[in-house]
């Protein structure tokens, strides 16, 4: 969520100056983006030799910062640098900016793939059968199509399975109707793209 950044956040961020290495800064930035957890707090406190309470605040502020950059799609160094107050430690500011720029594309892709959505179509398989007999007619030759759709719910409920499968049977007429509909969608999409 894109919460605003406060001066307190920037005070917390300066705790990064206690990092043993640039890699440690990178690690905590990346991990805090995903989630703020107890384990991360403990590890950070240990790595940076700071009290757990301060580690927790640092992680929270990093999380807020990285999500702010993601939400407003700040993609240039100038845009990100402008977020920091004038008084902020210059080298640290540059390092954080660099880390945020490096990871933003991946974070954006991940956010898009996990956005609120209906179950996403993941896989589509089909087969065409020739029905040669049934209880109503002993000899026939009627083609029919079975389509299997595998969908993944990006936000599954705790109980539910995230992957669901649906198999539908289509007569030739149904398939023609579907293709008709899909064709119209394609035409409409082209019209929109053309604008």
């Amino acid at each position, binding site marked *: *969520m*894109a919460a605003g950044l406060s001066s307190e956040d920037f005070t917390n961020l300066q705790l990064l100056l206690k990092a043993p290495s640039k890699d440690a800064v990178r690690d905590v930035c990346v991990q805090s983006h995903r989630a703020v957890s107890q384990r991360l707090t403990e590890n950070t406190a240990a790595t940076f030799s700071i009290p757990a309470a301060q580690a927790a605040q640092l992680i929270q502020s990093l999380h807020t910062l990285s*999500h702010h950059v*993601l*939400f*407003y*799609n700040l993609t240039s160094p100038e845009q990100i640098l402008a977020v920091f107050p004038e008084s902020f430690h210059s080298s640290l500011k540059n390092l954080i900016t660099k880390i945020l720029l490096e990871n933003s594309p991946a974070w*954006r892709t991940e*956010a*898009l793939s996990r*956005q*609120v*959505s*209906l*179950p*996403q*179509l993941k896989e*589509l398989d*089909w087969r*065409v059968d*020739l*029905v040669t007999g*049934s*209880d*109503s*007619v*002993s*000899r*026939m*030759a*009627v*083609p*029919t*199509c079975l*389509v299997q*759709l595998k*969908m993944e719910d990006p936000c599954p409920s705790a109980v539910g399975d995230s992957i669901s499968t*649906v*198999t*539908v*049977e*289509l*007569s*030739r007429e*149904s*398939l*023609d*109707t*579907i*293709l008709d*509909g*899909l*064709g119209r*969608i*394609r035409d*409409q*999409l082209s019209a*929109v793209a053309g604008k």
Partner: protein
Amino acid sequence: MLHFAKDVLPDSVSADFQNLNKFNEQQYKRLIEILFQFLLDPKETDRFMRQLTEFAGEHGISAGPLRNLMKSVLLVPQGALKKNLTAEQVKQDLLTLGLNEEKAAHFSSQWGENYAALSRLAVGQTLMVNQLVDMEWKFGVTVGTSEIQKVGNVFLQLKLVVRKGNSTENVFMELTLAQFYNFLHEMERAKASMECFA
């Protein structure tokens, strides 16, 4: 040896066909007309019964025995449809059952005329599993999310209505543009495959 049925038929059936011979040409043709009307619209059992009752009244015969007679007669076209019999085979069976030449010929010519429509009907009643009955869709652009203020991705949402037994089930899904084009491509391939059997 009958074409339309393997099992031995009850004696009453043979008696019913003998009785069918007793109707004059006009009456017989009307009964056959009623019969085929029913075969082409098998859900209209009430209408079938009503027409037989009316016929019985018009010609001073009892409705009950007439209905039973027609139920026996129905066995022939129903069996013939299952076995894809020709008009000639149907005629042979009717003669074997004791129907006279003229009446058998009339029946088999009606069979020939209506065969295509009756076949289509029978095929249409063939079991379909999870039949797709309807598809609805909408597409649009995602303009923003709680994580990203400005987005510009096209999404497509599909609702498939699937018949499950006596009721229907709705299946909702979302596709990206790439997935949509893949879906379209695959359905075109499936259609091409089906056309091989045309």
